[in-house]
């Protein structure tokens, strides 16, 4: 799998002395779903700002599509087109008068023709299901709607990698479901996605691969099953275990599942593993 984006021993300290990143090395493969977990202040947001060139590593370097980023004006423009970030708070991402204007902001800054911009805006609104809101002023929208507009505004730039910083924070359960479904759609189109979240259940079920950050360092990396079976790592990062694994383990310990039973990926998998209690089975 070719790496789309790589960070190599990236360190970054803010002017106030906060050491936000220390020798962070990681790799984001093309088209995959990557979750980044870790407590508040672990350096996730700082890392993301390195991925589209807003921040520049003080040590180490970032590679995009195999080439080291050189931070020229042109290189940055290219990078920011290819790597989109949907920030946590939609209110600080939306600043235009209407939904349509908001979404056209990025494509217009790319210097595309009006027609091309128009098409992209339509497509992005259709993909996020907000076509009906296009003429509304952004500040009249509900929180969930604003989130969609923020996602559409990044989609319209047609990036290859989209970073979602806590996309479900503060959303009600239905909006959370909708946003996760939208992420699934985007992923199916072959785009790589980085998701930061505090919801271990979502991370476990959704991600192909997980990086765990704490104190500005990568303290764990692996598949969801690997990450969440490492109790020391979870403790160090202040993470809970997904309930799915708790129940699975308990059932296995109590002898209901064979030791070789596959680790379930989602609720349906788990419930599928649980056998029916019937006379015939009891007779075995």
């Amino acid at each position, binding site marked *: 799998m070719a790496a789309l984006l790589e960070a190599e021993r990236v360190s970054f300290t803010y*002017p*106030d002395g906060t050491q936000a990143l220390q020798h962070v090395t990681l790799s984001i493969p093309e088209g995959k779903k990557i979750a980044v977990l870790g407590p508040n202040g672990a350096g996730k947001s700082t890392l993301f*700002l390195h991925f*589209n060139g*807003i921040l520049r590593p003080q040590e180490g370097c970032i590679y995009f599509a195999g080439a080291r980023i050189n931070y020229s*004006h042109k290189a940055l*423009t290219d990078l*920011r*087109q290819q790597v*989109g*970030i949907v*920030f946590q*708070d939609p*209110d*600080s*991402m939306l*600043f*235009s008068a209407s939904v349509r204007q908001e979404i056209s*902001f*990025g494509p217009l*800054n*790319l210097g595309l023709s009006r027609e091309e911009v128009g098409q992209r805006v339509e497509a992005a609104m259709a993909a996020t299901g907000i076509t009906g809101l296009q003429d509304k002023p952004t*500040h009249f929208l509900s929180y969930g709607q604003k989130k969609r507009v923020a996602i559409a*505004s*990044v989609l319209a*730039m047609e990036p290859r990698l989209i970073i979602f910083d806590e996309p479900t924070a503060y959303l009600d359960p239905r909006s959370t479901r909708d946003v996760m479904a939208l992420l699934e759609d985007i992923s199916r189109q072959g785009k790589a996605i980085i998701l930061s979240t505090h919801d271990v259940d979502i991370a476990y079920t959704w991600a192909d691969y997980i990086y765990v950050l704490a104190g500005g360092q990568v303290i764990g990396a692996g598949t969801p099953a690997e990450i969440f079976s490492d109790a020391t790592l979870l403790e160090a990062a202040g993470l809970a275990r997904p309930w799915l694994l708790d129940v699975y383990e308990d059932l296995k310990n109590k002898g209901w599942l064979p030791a070789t039973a596959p680790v379930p990926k989602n609720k349906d998998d788990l419930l599928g593993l649980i056998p029916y209690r019937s006379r015939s089975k009891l007779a075995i």
Partner: protein
Amino acid sequence: MFSIDQYAYSNRLKNIHPGEKVAFALVTLLIALVAPRPLIPAIIIALMAGATIGIAGIPARFYLQLFLVPFSFLVAGVAMIALTITSQPQASLKGVTLLGWTLGFTPAGMHLAGKIFLKSLGAAACLYFLSLTTPIVDILTVLRQLRVPALLVDLISLTYRFIFVLLATVNDIYTAQASRLGYASLRTSYHSLGQLAANLFIKTYRRSQELFTALTARGYHEELQVLEVAYPFSWPFLCLAAIFDLVLVILMLLT
């Protein structure tokens, strides 16, 4: 977010009674202003630098950098004071003559400029001593004790607290705009900055309403009353400061 502010909370003189520090800084500042000879500001710079670096523990490098902040103004201002433009040639005037007008310096002008330069740095040393050793929270306490109108103190206090909140907001908006190439060219930069300023205003307005609601819920009624931190008087500091200023005054009167 501001280094000066950070040092104000972490320096070794933080727990000295703020009233003493304010009084010391202001009295010394006054002496720097009225002193007729450049010797006094020079002594003040040396002693304030000693107190700020040596006693309060502010890194020397940072302290020296602070003096660069007013530097461009000082250089330009002092140059203009030293500069003489005249059509009547003077014996002491050294410079260039063009079309009968002479542009140049006189020794008197240079002397005055030097004096003002030194005096400004002396005064700045007093300001820096205050701002690097005394948190704004404590300065507000002094203002309240000095019977500055409560409304004014409340406004200053709110401004201080929300400078940091709004700066974080500006940072978020700016980052989001830059991520979508909002500052890729001069034209888009103007547009983006305009959006930023307008949005920040709307957010400021909303925040003020939320704050009002939250404070009303805690029984707010006209005044933002708070419990003051009681600092004990530090006699050693007070004595040293008084002796220092007294010596300066005597020195000023003698010379």
